[in-house]
């Protein structure tokens, strides 16, 4: 029986400093501190359960409160349950854990809003004329990539080998609707002009089928095993192969279809007949072919287009849903995922321009092609690459994605609310509400625990090993009754099943 697909997205944003002398790390710190300046309290990330090698300076609360422009690696938890931090010289925001793909879309949009507010507030901290600009993309066009990772809760009982084999075909072929589009090419040994336009920002950077790396020789399936919850029951599938999407529906489809395919694997309802002969070759073949006609080699000796593989996955998803129901992604989300999935495949097959309001690579390609035609430009003209980059500029007055008619899923008021408020549906509610109510008594927090300092006793760590505990339904009464952090902890001792 497939388990609920608790999910989230972590995005590393591209960052550019104008008319000021800051490196990317300092600029990222400044940006985040500018956002944190909205409230009087801030809570450090707790590195307790992280692997060695991560910078632990986030534990030094005094340092984090240092003046904004100092080069400390800021790492904080927000009242909406998200993590906002500096990672590899990029500002990164991880959404809180969400119960459904549509909730992920809302919190991914809230993350954009957080970056936008950060940019606006940073202006006051910079010299006159200075500006920090953030881009929601995954490559600089010069061979440097930064990620947009997805995370899904998976049943530990599923053999990892089966997971790898059966999810890979989806990761390779979902690009047809998840690709954010890219002018040029950055695969090893290639020249930028070798490919005029491709579906994916990230496909050029994948060199292995499976592995632990995330910064070099990136694998299609990442094996990082940090469940951030009960490791005996769960796995967190850390997906590094995706693009950051500007289109809300593309984000919904990326997370929604993947959640369903994973649930099918848990129910052993997918089988091995989509296995690819050469996944690394195939991921580039699919990305490099905006005509969508290229075929990739299957393990059974046959060939198929990415669209054909996607149609088969959808067909199997429908029959899985008929037999097992859609509880893993919730019924409402599940129905919408299946509808949008069919709709996008139908459009891509008929004419990709039919889905220019949904698929980022199509929306961007229309701009690039239209502009090239109007001004009679060669494919390597810098103006076309500028359009590619500026598509993902998060400034409202500069963003091209904001101008090209992408369909909106989430009401703007709900996005703004999600900047400060956690989702009701997961332990993120407990985390975010604790921070909103008791931040002065919280030393640090992370995905699976909160450390309180309530004075006389030793620091008190409250574990949150179950992602679906600590929801609003389970804790609203507890919060209403608790008058202080100490009171909350005392009450938790009486009622451990929250």
């Amino acid at each position, binding site marked *: 029986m497939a388990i609920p697909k608790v999910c989230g997205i972590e995005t*590393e944003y*591209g*960052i*550019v400093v104008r008319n000021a002398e800051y490196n*990317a790390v300092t600029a990222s710190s400044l940006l985040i501190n500018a956002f944190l300046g909205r409230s009087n309290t801030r809570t450090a990330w707790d590195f307790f359960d992280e692997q060695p090698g991560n910078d632990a300076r986030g534990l030094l609360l005094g340092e984090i409160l240092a003046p904004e422009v100092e080069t400390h690696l800021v790492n904080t938890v927000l009242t909406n349950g998200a993590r906002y931090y500096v*990672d*590899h*010289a*990029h500002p990164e925001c991880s959404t809180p854990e969400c119960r459904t793909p549509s909730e992920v879309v809302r919190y991914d949009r809230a993350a954009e809003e957080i970056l936008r507010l950060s940019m606006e507030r940073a202006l006051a901290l910079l010299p006159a004329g200075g500006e920090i600009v953030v881009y929601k993309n995954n*490559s*600089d*066009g*010069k061979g*440097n*990539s*930064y*990620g947009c*990772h997805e995370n899904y809760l998976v049943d530990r009982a599923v053999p990892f080998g089966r997971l790898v084999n059966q999810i890979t075909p989806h990761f390779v072929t979902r690009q047809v609707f998840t690709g954010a589009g890219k002018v040029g090419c950055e695969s090893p040994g290639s020249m930028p002009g070798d490919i005029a336009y491709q579906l994916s920002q990230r496909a050029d950077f994948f060199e292995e089928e499976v592995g632990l790396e*995330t*910064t070099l020789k990136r694998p299609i399936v990442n094996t990082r095993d940090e469940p951030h919850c009960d490791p005996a029951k769960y796995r967190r599938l850390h997906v*590094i192969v995706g693009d950051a999407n500007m289109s809300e529906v593309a984000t919904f489809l990326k997370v929604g279809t993947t959640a369903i395919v994973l649930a099918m694997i848990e129910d052993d309802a997918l089988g091995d007949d989509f296995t690819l002969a050469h996944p690394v070759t195939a991921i580039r073949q699919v990305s490099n072919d905006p005509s969508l006609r290229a075929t990739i080699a299957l393990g059974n000796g046959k060939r*198929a287009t990415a*669209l*054909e593989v996607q*149609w*088969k996955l*959808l*067909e199997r998803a429908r029959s899985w849903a008929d037999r097992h129901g859609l509880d893993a992604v919730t019924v409402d989300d599940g129905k919408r995922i299946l*509808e949008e999935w*069919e*709709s996008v*495949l*139908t*459009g891509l*097959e*008929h004419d990709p*321009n*039919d889905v*220019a*309001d949904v698929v980022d690579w199509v929306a961007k390609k*229309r*701009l690039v092609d*239209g*502009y090239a035609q*109007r001004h009679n430009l060669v494919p390597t003209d*810098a*103006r076309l*690459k*500028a*359009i590619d*980059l*500026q598509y993902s500029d998060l400034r409202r*007055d*500069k963003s*091209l994605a904001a*101008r*090209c*008619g992408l*369909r909106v899923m989430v009401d703007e008021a709900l996005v703004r609310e999600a900047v400060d408020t956690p989702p009701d549906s997961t332990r993120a509610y407990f985390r975010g509400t604790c921070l909103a109510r008791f931040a002065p008594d919280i030393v640090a927090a992370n995905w699976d625990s909160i450390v309180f300092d309530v004075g006389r006793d030793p620091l008190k760590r409250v574990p949150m090993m179950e992602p679906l505990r600590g929801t609003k339904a389970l804790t609203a009464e507890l919060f209403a009754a608790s008058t202080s952090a100490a009171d909350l902890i005392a009450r938790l001792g009486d009622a451990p099943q929250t």
Partner: protein
Amino acid sequence: MAERTKKQRSAPQREEATPTDSETGADTENTDRLKEELDGLLDEIDEVLETNAEDFVKSYVQKGGQ
């Protein structure tokens, strides 16, 4: 593949069969509107595109991340 042919056939039916999905009917209109807007959008790109595209693209250099 057989499945694909089947889905191609079923796709137009879906628009008629699910009238509750108001967005589906709007899709075609939406696409037409997008086409009309493309020209205006290209005008706009000339206004908002970074003034020196070559410098902008050249200086857009990021440290590799995850």
